[in-house]
């Protein structure tokens, strides 16, 4: 779609009325760096990029766009994996990158008040001198922004015990599309009225723009240790996960990798993973020394009783970090195996793990593509990494169909199409499989309650019924199920 130059000029002029010209970008080479997020298969340069330096400019940008009926896409660090920050060719990309100050750390109250562009890890770094940290730790934490974390309700390897973003924030300042500030949550542990803070969390920039976040900080655990267990059969590994939970243990983290994943990782980082195992588990305990000693002994025994052929406990902090280094490098390591990979993000009930992995293995044959599996096993969040080569025509499309079929399987076993990466543009058709028309209509009604003219990140996260109807037809062709409950347009 060619840029509407007249419109572009008008929008830039309106923005320059209250922002320095250097923070309003429109030249092709200036806006191109914003054309995609972490899901680079989708690209679209925005009409205009606005780089506000403070909250009141954010409000003015929104007010202006609202008045001119220009769609707005908010962007944090652009590490999102579902195309949530994909710009619109007729819209403004609102980057929060310049709002990157940590405004206050209140050590006695254990809170940090930060701007949305602050990097996730920077909060923990700033809190460290007080013996505190911010718990949610997405693998992208050196780069991703806290505003983006709120918009995606991001998790990390420790969220089984410490929760997702929604569990670790106390207060948000949010700019509405009209350019008004509302405060959600508060200084205490709850707020009067509806829990709009929870509703905003994970709303992918469709309901408002987050301009300030007060997060909860936790005391650093006294110590942590991790158990590495190897299994000949992924089903047995899944069983071991259930046994740990059944024993009343909530580990600080419980991750699984299948053999294709460990084979990719081991030569890359030498984490000490046995590459002959069908799957490995990493199970961490943290807390006081007494607690950890107790729990680790119990976990070790459960792993053995569950049929692990090798169980190792990290002897010191260096070894603990080495065990984790492999897991944390899983994506880039898999990336070395293949020119491109496509990261999926379904959640399933843990007991269906073996069945789902078998299903994925069968799909590998059908689509002629390989897949490595990395899994937040503790909370059932699966990250299949589909390997493909974008230069080979047809492979990307095959990878996408493969991905969509994995998500369908996740739904069929009682799970969901996204655990933490969001729907964005990527999984929008899978939303038609997960939700009925009535639910989608209710979600649209909520959207309009916040954004009557649907200017905030339109076309993302929640599909129109029209789109689902078309998608349904598409799937009738390939023999998959129809959507009889949907109205056809």
């Amino acid at each position, binding site marked *: 779609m060619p840029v509407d130059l007249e419109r572009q000029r008008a929008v830039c002029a309106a923005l320059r009325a209250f922002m320095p010209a250097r923070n309003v970008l429109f030249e092709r080479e200036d806006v191109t760096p914003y054309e995609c997020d972490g899901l680079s298969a989708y690209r679209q340069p925005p009409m205009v990029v606005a780089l506000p330096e403070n909250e009141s400019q954010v409000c003015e940008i929104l007010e202006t766009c609202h008045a001119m009926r220009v769609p707005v896409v908010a962007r944090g660090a652009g590490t999102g994996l579902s195309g949530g920050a994909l710009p619109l060719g007729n819209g403004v990309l609102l980057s929060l990158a310049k709002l990157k100050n940590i405004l206050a750390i209140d050590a006695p109250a254990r809170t940090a008040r930060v701007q949305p562009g602050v990097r996730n890890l920077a909060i923990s770094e700033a809190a460290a001198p007080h013996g505190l940290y911010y718990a949610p730790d997405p693998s992208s934490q050196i780069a991703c922004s806290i505003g983006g974390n709120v918009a995606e309700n991001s998790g990390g390897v420790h969220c089984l015990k410490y929760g997702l973003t929604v569990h670790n924030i106390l207060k948000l300042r949010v700019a509405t599309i009209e350019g008004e500030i509302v405060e959600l949550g508060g200084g205490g542990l709850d707020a009067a009225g509806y829990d709009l803070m929870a*509703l905003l969390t994970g709303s992918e920039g469709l309901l408002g723009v987050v301009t300030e976040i007060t997060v909860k900080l936790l005391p650093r655990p006294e110590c942590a240790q991790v158990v590495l267990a190897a299994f000949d059969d992924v089903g047995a590994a899944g069983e071991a996960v259930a046994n740990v939970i*059944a024993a009343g243990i909530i580990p600080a983290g419980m991750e699984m990798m299948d053999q294709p994943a460990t084979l990719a990782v081991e030569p890359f980082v030498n984490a000490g993973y046995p590459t002959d195992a069908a799957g490995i588990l990493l199970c961490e305990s943290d807390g006081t020394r007494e607690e950890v000693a107790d729990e680790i002994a119990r976990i070790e025994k459960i792993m053995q009783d569950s049929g692990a052929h090798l169980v190792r406990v990290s002897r010191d902090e260096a070894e603990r970090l080495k065990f984790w280094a492999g897991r944390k490098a899983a994506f880039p390591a898999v990336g070395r195996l293949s020119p491109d990979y496509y990261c999926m993000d379904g959640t399933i009930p843990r007991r269906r793990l073996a069945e789902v992995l078998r299903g994925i293995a069968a799909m590998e044959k059908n689509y002629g593509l390989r897949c490595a599996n990395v899994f937040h096993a503790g909370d059932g969040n699966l990250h299949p990494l589909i390997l493909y080569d974008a230069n080979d025509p047809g492979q990307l499309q095959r990878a996408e169909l493969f991905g969509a079929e994995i998500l369908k399987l996740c739904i069929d076993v009682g799970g*969901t199409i996204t655990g933490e990466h969001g729907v964005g543009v990527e999984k929008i058709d899978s939303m038609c499989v997960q939700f009925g028309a009535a639910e989608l209509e*209710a979600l649209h009604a909520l959207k309009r309650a916040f954004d009557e003219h649907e200017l905030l990140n339109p076309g993302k996260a929640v599909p129109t019924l029209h789109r689902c109807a078309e998608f349904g037809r598409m799937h009738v062709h390939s023999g998959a199920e129809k959507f009889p409950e949907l109205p056809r347009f």
Partner: protein
Amino acid sequence: MDTLIQHFADTIRAATEKRRPLRIRGGGSKDFYGNAAAGEDFDVTGHRGIIDYEPTELVITARAGTPLAEIEAAMRGHGQMLGFEPPHFGGSATLGGCIAAGLSGPRRAAAGAARDFVLGLRMLDGRGTDLRFGGQVMKNVAGYDVSRLMTGSLGTLGVILEVSLKALPLPQAELTLSCELPRSEAVELMNAWAGQPLPVTATCHVEKRLYVRLSGAESAVRAAAKKIGGEEVPNAAEFWSGVRDHRDLFFSGDGPVWRLSLASTAPELGLAGHQMVEWGGALRWLKTDADAGSVRKVAREAGGHATLFRRGGQTAGAFHPLPEPLMRLHRRVKQAMDPAGVFNPGRLYPDF
């Protein structure tokens, strides 16, 4: 859809058509909470029973009319519990009422609130449409988080039919310690403990005494007890359930009781009356004859809000007034879910 749900939906549609409000009611244990709602009683207790409980998945799903006590007993049988330690306020409390009220008990500061444990729900909106949001898995970001929005909305957005909740294992060991201490020092100590890796799962200051509960592995509880000191409280479970359900002596009488939710480090309130402090300092119960305006001013200045929890003759609205832009959003959200305004009008705010 089973026949009872069909009947619920028909009732809602008829009410919507005639614009005749419905007053949704579970066991009635929280009738006292919030403002009086207009409307015809809409009893949901017939829709009951645990649908699915998979202890190794840490998930329980039950119908809204299920007695809370039944759910907790089933979970106890598998060594699990509801992590937010929900208040019952009487034997008739149901799951639906518990989630609609969104109240949490003593474990809140350590483990999370009711909304933190809600994974998904099924509901009927103001058109009588049967809707499902969220699910039965731990992590799910597909669609807006309507389940958490419903939590604490006091039945003003829809009729909750089923709820899926995350379960937590019961702690292996639990111990409560107590010592005599002035309130301001107690609040300071609560905050200091929360800043250290200690297994503190509840705190309370009442009648000049500080109580602290430790939970976790036997060894960890013992080690922490040594560090913290104080006398061990016998019958601690009874003490905490008394705090949770307001059977504690502090709540006796029939004057107004205010619930102030504040920053945990908020200083002394400077209001006359009696106080109980919970949640590491973030929750302060206040028995006072002070007027609503002064109580709310104090709460706002401490970064929080004040609820008139027990009216005791006060005429103010139960919930802290909202600034207009936020109130406008509330009205629009209500309008989206319940366009005819049939559910519990006035219970939360007089506007809707």
